């Protein structure tokens, strides 16, 4: 294997030939460089997209810090090289390496991918290939790193089951230490095997044993220890463990209390997509929008205190020099002390040049006051997400905001000096018709017409219309995707209606993008072969115009005798066993089903902070809740003994 010096010498010959070589050299402030030989376990965390995007990922940063804080382990980073760099690396025989040490990824003990969205799957395969690590889990031996993955798409890990040795379902802050502990044991035993010949019981601890240990960790799913059988119609009959250590149902991991947020963000030396400090103010969401996977899978809501957020933001801004601070959550307005937080932030950063972003604000005038307090440049525009525009649709998706509230808010935004409003919508929701889409166009026109009355002709509107993809572990996991023909017709309608007004800017998602995401997100184990073939034939960077190869995907489906429509355009039977049936985010299937039924009837389920609907979080995490009373969690308190509750409320199915 190449030494760091050899890799550096090889890089020197190619770096000036690629776009933005700063992506590939590391050397950033706040990167952690530990002595390679001073630790036992070495992990490489990978965001499988380009540096410019991956570097800002907070989830990986948290894990990076967690591991580097240990004395016995180190963590480094790698990203997907862009097409130009990949070509040259392959030409010059340079394996993918970690930015900190320039050591090949194959030298590490643990490779950890984050897979927040499905269009990164082919990139993950490509990265393993570039690193010279066998792509299939089954082909790896004692000499190869263990490959794990986490992130939102781990809520249906099956499409990637053949390539990833173990998945972390849920939050990684605690479980990463348990994983590292097992790796350390593995290393120690390998060491012993080298010194003592045989007879030592420890020395029989091999790769397979590591994975067996992993299977015992709550929240860790090791696909090789499960077997899937299928029904005649191609749906899953069951996915069952084949060893006693593997649980029938893998429950996601959560932390009872959010640990202190990262402060020492790595400061890239080149301009990247998000040059900013991000502080997570709250995790989880209680709104229950039925299309939103994040909202369903990150429950329960846990908040950080105002003091903790402000102090962390201050320390992070000081240690990075970043010009922007993002206060992250799925729904800022729902943070209990949002007003206090905004006051405290604006006071703490008074007079310092800092842009503060507060995403996902509710459509109400309070939001405008919050933004005003943060003294943001009005040039940035004001973002709101109504998602749907007809009353029927709003009921179906469980995001009910009357037109009048929207108009009242947008008028106020325009009249207080913002010239641009960005409105986010989604088309392709279940049972959506052209009328529902027409309502989006009408609402946009009304927003701008009313805006002109209060603020004149300078007002602008950006309408971002994405396409809904049904996701696992949500109330819409049963529904069919809208067809390509329907989507094109709906997009044509919007273009026809909105292109006339020069002050309305419309953007939309290409149907091809949506389809790739749709196959992968509800795919089963058989999709793994499709991914492999598509990648083999050149598919990568599926989220990028430059990379996506739609026909390659179609050909891959054909090669394996699978019909893409089976995954996209099929309404699931009510009693269907899903490919992800053995994975639970603790929100019970029958709760999701009930919610799905309510959506068919147009019934709203309001914020569960006001009224707990027993979604399943509490019985699953009753112990954690009981040990962490108080208002940090937004679920009701638990006092009764756990055992009983667990028996009364089965986790899945009825």
């Amino acid at each position, binding site marked *: 294997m190449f030494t760091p010096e050899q890799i550096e010498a090889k890089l020197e010959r190619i770096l000036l030939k690629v776009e933005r070589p700063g992506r590939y050299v590391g050397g950033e*402030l706040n990167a952690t460089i530990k002595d390679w030989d001073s630790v036992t376990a070495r992990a490489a965390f990978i965001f499988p997209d380009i540096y410019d995007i991956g570097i800002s990922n907070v989830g990986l940063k948290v894990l990076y810090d967690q591991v580097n804080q240990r004395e016995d382990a180190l963590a480094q980073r790698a990203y997907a090289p862009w097409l130009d760099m990949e070509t040259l690396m392959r030409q010059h025989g340079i394996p993918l390496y970690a930015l900190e040490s320039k050591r090949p990824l194959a030298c590490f003990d643990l490779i950890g991918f984050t897979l927040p969205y499905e269009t990164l799957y082919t990139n993950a395969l490509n990265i393993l290939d570039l690193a010279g690590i066998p792509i299939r889990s089954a082909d790896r031996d004692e000499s190869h790193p263990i490959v794990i993955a986490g992130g939102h798409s781990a809520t249906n890990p099956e499409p990637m089951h053949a390539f990833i040795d173990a998945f972390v379902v849920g939050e990684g802050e605690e479980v990463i230490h348990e994983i590292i502990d097992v790796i350390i044991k593995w290393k120690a035993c390998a060491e012993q095997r080298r010194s003592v010949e045989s007879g030592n019981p420890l020395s029989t601890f091999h790769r397979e044993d590591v994975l067996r240990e992993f299977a015992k960790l709550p929240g860790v799913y090791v696909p090789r220890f499960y077997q899937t059988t299928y029904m005649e119609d191609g749906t899953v009959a069951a996915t069952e463990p084949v060893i006693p250590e593997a649980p029938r149902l893998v429950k996601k991991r959560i932390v009872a209390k959010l640990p202190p947020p990262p402060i020492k963000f790595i400061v890239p030396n080149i301009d990247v997509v998000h040059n900013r400090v991000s502080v997570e103010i709250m995790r989880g969401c209680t709104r229950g929008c039925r299309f939103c996977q994040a909202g369903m899978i990150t429950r329960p809501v846990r908040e950080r205190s105002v003091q903790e957020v402000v102090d962390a933001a201050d320390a992070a801004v000081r240690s990075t020099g970043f010009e922007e601070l993002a206060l992250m959550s799925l729904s800022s307005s729902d943070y209990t002390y949002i007003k206090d937080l905004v006051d405290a932030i604006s006071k703490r950063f008074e007079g310092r040049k800092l842009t503060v972003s507060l995403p996902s604000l509710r459509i109400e005038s309070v939001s405008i006051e919050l933004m005003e307090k943060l003294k943001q440049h009005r040039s940035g525009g004001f973002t709101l997400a109504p998602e749907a525009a007809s009353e029927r649709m709003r009921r179906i998706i469980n995001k009910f905001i009357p037109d009048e509230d929207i108009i009242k808010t947008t008028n106020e935004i325009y009249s207080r000096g913002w010239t641009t409003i960005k409105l986010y919508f989604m088309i392709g929701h279940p049972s959506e018709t052209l009328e529902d889409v027409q309502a989006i166009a009408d609402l946009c026109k009304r927003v701008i017409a009313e805006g002109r009355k209060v603020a004149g002709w300078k007002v602008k509107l950006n309408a971002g219309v994405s396409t809904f993809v049904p996701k696992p572990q949500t109330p819409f996991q049963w529904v069919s995707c809208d067809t390509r023909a329907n989507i094109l017709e709906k997009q044509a309608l919007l273009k026809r209606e909105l292109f006339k007004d020069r002050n309305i800017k419309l953007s939309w998602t290409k149907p091809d993008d949506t389809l790739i995401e749709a196959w992968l997100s509800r795919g089963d184990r058989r999709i793994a072969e499709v991914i492999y073939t598509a990648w083999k034939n050149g598919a990568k960077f599926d989220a990028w115009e430059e990379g996506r190869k739609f026909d390659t995907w179609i050909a891959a489906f054909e090669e394996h005798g699978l019909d893409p429509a089976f995954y996209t355009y099929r309404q699931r039977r009510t009693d269907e066993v899903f490919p992800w049936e053995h994975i639970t985010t603790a929100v019970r299937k029958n709760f999701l089903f009930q919610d799905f039924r309510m959506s068919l009837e147009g019934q709203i389920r309001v914020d569960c902070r006001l009224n707990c609907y027993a979604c399943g979080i509490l019985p699953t995490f009753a112990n954690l809740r009981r040990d962490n009373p108080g208002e940090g969690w937004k679920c009701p308190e638990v006092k009764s003994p756990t055992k009983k509750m667990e028996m009364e409320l089965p986790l899945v199915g009825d």
Partner: protein
Amino acid sequence: MRIRITFTKQGALRYIGHLDLHRLWERAMRRAELPLSYSQGFHPQPKISLAAALPLGFSSRAEVMDVRLNEEIAVEDLSARLKDSLPPDIKVVQVRTVDEKLPALQTQTLSAAYDVHLTEPVAGSELKRRVEGLMMSESLIRERRGKSYDLRPLVEMLSVVGMADGSSWLKMTLAAREGATGRPEEVLGALGIEADTARVERTRLIFKE
């Protein structure tokens, strides 16, 4: 106050361009909590000016930059604060105050000195012959980005340094005035050396007194 900072740019930072370097310094100043002056207007810019852009891939032992601050700060204090707020491949060599009224740094730059090491060595005698040939010529017309120009007057000094082990490397001083900048890779081109077999380091910037 106006301060002049001399710094190194090595390792990974060789691959960071001029604009990114500018921004890197702006952030470093913010981290060090130095009171940077900003220009007026809708998009205030920090008053940081770098003497001469360093081409991508070159390292440097002596980049020079002027910065304007809103408050007076002791020079020792400045260096100490900057030290901890820079990425590992940038090191401050010197910080001193300069007269506010001096003309802009870029207009004061005259020439730049470089050391060039070759990864695919050319025999010392052959290299000497080529260098002499270049220095003897009256003019050296080359083309760059579709325009032809005379490289020869931009080469102020060029010599071969022979080492005891028989290897050799080049030293050169090239003009670095506004509108008249000699580029080391052009000189290498004129000497028949592939730019990607050379490691170039800027060793000094020379200013008008």
